[in-house]
């Protein structure tokens, strides 16, 4: 529990709370971005700058953009007051405790704590492991990404079909 960790953890915690409590969708997305960026700080403290970079590139840069555009798809992203309805307290408590137990169990089941703390991350070894040992999973992942692409294209084209083409002035 270094001071750096405490600061980063507090940042993550605060940003997460704000994410779910924001009354505007856009604010929630930006707080989510802050939360993801704070996670990058955590990675840097764990001597895993590669993961920190990926966190920046993929999550803060990519996923947040996706969220931003997702929010822009909703009607009136800004002025509608957003209210977070809580589930009944008891049910919520049970669900969150169960989730916490599941995660904690997973973390403690690792024999010697977090493996990243033991040896600094080696980018080259990540590549060797992904392309060597886990090559099948890696190649399967590409199929997943392909499915996501095709699905997105089909979804986006759906709305275009609804709007009739202009009669006269055809651009190109």
């Amino acid at each position, binding site marked *: 529990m270094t001071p750096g960790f405490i600061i980063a953890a507090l940042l993550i915690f605060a940003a997460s709370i704000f994410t779910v409590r924001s009354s505007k969708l856009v604010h929630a997305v930006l707080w989510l971005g802050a939360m993801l960026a704070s996670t990058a700080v955590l990675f840097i403290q764990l001597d895993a700058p*590669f993961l920190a970079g990926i966190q920046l590139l993929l999550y*803060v*840069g990519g996923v*947040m*953009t996706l969220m931003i555009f997702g929010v822009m798809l909703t009607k009136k992203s800004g002025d509608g007051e957003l209210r977070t309805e809580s589930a009944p307290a008891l049910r919520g408590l049970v669900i969150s405790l169960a989730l916490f137990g599941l995660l904690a169990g997973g973390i403690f089941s690792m024999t010697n704590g977090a493996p990243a703390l033991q040896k600094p991350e080696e980018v080259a070894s990540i590549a060797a492991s992904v392309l060597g040992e886990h090559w099948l999973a890696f190649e399967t992942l590409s199929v997943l990404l392909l499915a996501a692409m095709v699905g997105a294209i089909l979804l986006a084209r759906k709305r275009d079909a609804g709007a009739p083409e202009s009669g006269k002035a055809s651009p190109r």
Partner: protein
Amino acid sequence: MIFAASLAAAVVIVVLSATALALWYERKLAARMQTRIGPQFVGPIGLFQPVADLLKLVQKEEIVPMGADRVLFALAPPLTVIFALAAAAFVPLWPGVAVVRSDVGVLLVIGFGGLAMVPVWMAGWASFNKYALLGAMRAVAQSISYGVPLVLAAMVPVILAGTMDLDGITQFQATHHWFGLWPIIPGLPAFILFLLAMLAESNRIPFDIPEAESELVAGVTTEYTGMQFGFVYLAEYVHTVVGAAIGSVMFLGGWDGPFAPGLHWLLLKTLCLFTFIYWIRWTLVRLRADQLMTLCWKWLVPAGLGLVFLSAAWNQTGWSR
């Protein structure tokens, strides 16, 4: 640690003052191209014009438009500057010295560079102005689209040098060859691709559609006044200056040069790239949003992938050794 802190402070101050100088330099350059004289009254040959501009901007009233998201509106412009500055921390200044020396410098630079669009979008969205919002949406779409070729172009020096450390890449170039020059086939096209993507990321012509003032009035800056506007404006120049520096580090050997390697070579190369970028800016007209997207996704992305595989093949065939 004191050295690191003072170095960091020095880099911030140097980048900001270089940006101020760049403002003057660009205006002079543009004036020369347009058979004008350019700024000439404030200070010798108009050198203090940016200072005068800054003083003017600072004095102006800051107006928050009705219906705007006040917090985001006030927060976004300063953030644009800070985010644009962040990538400068990773630039190796002279052999072995950078504010942050990281094994994954390239990744972090690109990560921070990609983040620069977030405050721009915040600014556009918070303004509650249609022009600003259209500009913001264009900015994000363009920034993320060109992020892909940027990553792919940056991958080429990484493959050739076998490291993501920016200083390591420069070292490799110093001992072997500058990637912009050799190997000419993945190197030079990758450099051009990098420049194109960088122009797009920093919203310069022919990719300046987010603030296309003949269409969107002033894009995301439409509602901004005074220093708030100044920040967004400044951030663009910081982005260009830092981008030029990173381009010269990754493809033109950074601090490497004949006689004595050092900071002056980096500055000189940055100046050359900067001049080139502004030469383009004051010559070309801008593209349209859809042409920009087509160019990126249809041509630049496959080209970037091809270059990545070419450089990998270059490594494997052993010509590099």
